[in-house]
């Protein structure tokens, strides 16, 4: 079974929004950047909005092959614009003039058609915005090709700490996502990959209405390369032993339905109770060989002749 995750990297024609949902127990940042590195190999520019990590720390996640394409939007150093009071807008606040798309355009090189945008993290923006503002900011990024003529393909990868937000907010963002990646807390040690970093569930909503759901294990090595394998095969095998086995109706019975040949013969020999003694004696003679013994007495009017010619006396 091929990895859905890798397919996502390979053949993605239209723009899309990948939502990474992680939690305190399992950070999704490693997976997010590993995938972003792979995608941006084929893309022209690689934008990162970083809010939780310093620029240096962020660039440690970026592979050497794509570091030349990297454009870092630093929101970590001065999130609320205190260092620069002259600036009218705060970096964390997405106003009509300074949302993702307009900040992107400021640093867009000419003749750039395919860009990767990483939002690390969406959670930092959410306290300052309503759900709808956040959604429309992301949507404007995904549909940038409609407004900016050069751009053809925008891949947006957003990280969300889903345990921090209300169900309503998370659902709203999921509604926008073409691919949802949920980092799970399951133990990856059962998988085929050695020293795996974790398990995630991927849910891909294709344009033709098909939805693919798969669990995969991932490992990121020192060169930011991603190693993946499908997770649930082992589990499936376990399940097939457990659930798929046909229920055996003869298993837990108080009587025996499966008789051996010797047992069957013994059973037939048993004389059951409540059969009258006469029947029991008859049982001795083999069936089908009945005989009539008749001794005529004097009163009998015995005729030598067989009137019907059929009695065979």
């Amino acid at each position, binding site marked *: 079974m091929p990895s859905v995750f890798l397919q996502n990297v390979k053949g993605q024609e239209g723009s899309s929004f990948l939502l990474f949902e992680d939690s305190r127990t399992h950070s999704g940042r490693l997976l997010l950047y590993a995938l972003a590195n792979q995608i941006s190999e084929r893309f022209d520019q690689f934008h990162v909005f970083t809010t939780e990590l310093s620029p240096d720390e962020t660039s440690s996640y970026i592979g050497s092959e794509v570091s030349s394409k990297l454009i870092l939007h630093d929101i970590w150093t001065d999130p609320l614009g205190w260092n620069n009071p002259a600036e009218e807008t705060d970096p964390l606040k997405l106003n009509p003039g300074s949302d993702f798309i307009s900040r992107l355009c400021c640093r867009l090189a000419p003749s750039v058609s395919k860009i990767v945008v990483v939002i690390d993290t969406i959670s930092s923006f959410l306290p300052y*915005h*309503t*759900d*709808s*503002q956040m*959604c*429309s900011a992301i*949507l*404007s990024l995904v*549909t940038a090709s*409609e407004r900016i003529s050069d751009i053809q393909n925008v891949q947006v990868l957003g990280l969300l700490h889903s345990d921090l937000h209300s*169900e*309503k907010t998370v*659902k*709203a*963002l999921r*509604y*926008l996502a073409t691919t949802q990646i949920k980092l799970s807390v399951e133990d990856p040690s059962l998988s085929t990959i050695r020293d795996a970093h974790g398990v995630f569930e991927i*849910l891909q*909503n294709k344009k033709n*209405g*098909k*939805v*693919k*759901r798969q669990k995969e294990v991932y490992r990121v090595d020192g060169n930011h390369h991603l190693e993946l394998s499908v997770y649930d095969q082992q589990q499936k095998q376990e399940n097939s032993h457990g659930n798929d086995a*046909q*229920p055996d*109706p003869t*298993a*837990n*019975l108080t009587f025996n339905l499966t008789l051996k040949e010797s047992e069957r013969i013994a059973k037939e020999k048993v004389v059951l109770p409540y059969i009258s003694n006469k029947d029991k004696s008859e049982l001795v003679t083999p069936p089908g060989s009945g005989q009539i013994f008749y001794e005529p007495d004097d009163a009998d009017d015995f005729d030598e002749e067989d009137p019907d010619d059929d009695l065979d006396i």
Partner: protein
Amino acid sequence: MAATMSTASGVKTSFQRKGKAKSVQIQGTRPSLHNNLLLVSTGVPSFDFILGGGLAVGSVLLIEEDTYGHYAQILLRYFLAEGIMSGHNLFLASASQNPQKILKMLPFPVEGDKLLAGDAKNDPTTSAGVEPMKIAWRYESLPKVEGNTPSHKFGHSYDLSRTVTPELLSRVITDTFYLPEEMKEESKSSPLYLCPTHQKLLRRIESQIRDGGYHLTDSVQSKQTPERTILRIALHSLGSPLWWDENSSEGIDTLTSLCRFLHALRGLLRNSLAVAVVTMPTHLLEVFTDVRRLERLCDAAVQIESFAGSEKETNPMYEEYHGLVHVKQLPRLNSLTLSTPDTADLGFKLKRKKFTIEKLHLPPEFSDSTSRPQEDVVLPSSSTGCSSIFQKRGLDF
């Protein structure tokens, strides 16, 4: 003599069919069998049947979207495509996708080629078709019998693998509303009782109905427009996060605004030649009672549940279907009763040329194996009344 004639004719014509005089002749419509309402087709005949023959003109249908919104959008596209085939004008609003794109993705009618060919034939040589019949002289004076052209049928079939051609699309007037573009020009209107997004949309629909001459009360005074048609209003994913507007309208929460919007829309449509289909991702609205409120504000409400990505996809009971249709509310117009379908268990399947909604039934058992696999699956882990508790998979008596 004349007097007797007049009385005789008077006797003859004293019986008048009530319906015939009243009903408006608009193409692509037919009167309902139940209550003489004017109906239009949703584009899916089996869906029409469930709704009691079709959508009544002036009503609002709510389609509650499946989780990924795919099948609900297909139904919306069918609704619009049917408008093209019946010569109805279209209005499409969307927030997440450019409505122009959705219009381009409308399914191609199976009879579309014929229709286009008919157009091409009719335009240049209208006189060529009027060759008089030469069977006998007296037939010439007979009125010409119009062949039943396919465009006047009620409900058509569509090919989902093809999309409409621009020529077909240009047969009707289309207008679109793309929220991100509409919200660019900020115009603070005075007393807000709706969210700005809903306000804008409602204004737009209002002006569409007024300017297009779909309003019924207007037309009574001015009868210049002899050829009347229907406006099909399709609102895609209304109520999705993009239509929410929590911040800019103080004091009005989105849901209240949405309810007011639907109420206003329904009132607006009641006396106009328009029909609306609204799809809504109700799974994003948290509270169940909220959804009930929205359903009550529409004339009919139907929920689509897709199996894609859910556990039911692998359930053998549902293997023939792509999803379920839950009828939440049926239209109750001009009557005390409503037409109820035979069963509430409805499933839908999507083929290349057909979207059908049918009664849900078990697939026929062809295999000779004594076990019926679905019996195990339909009741997962629910221990019913007579099943024994201590043994899970034993034989139950």
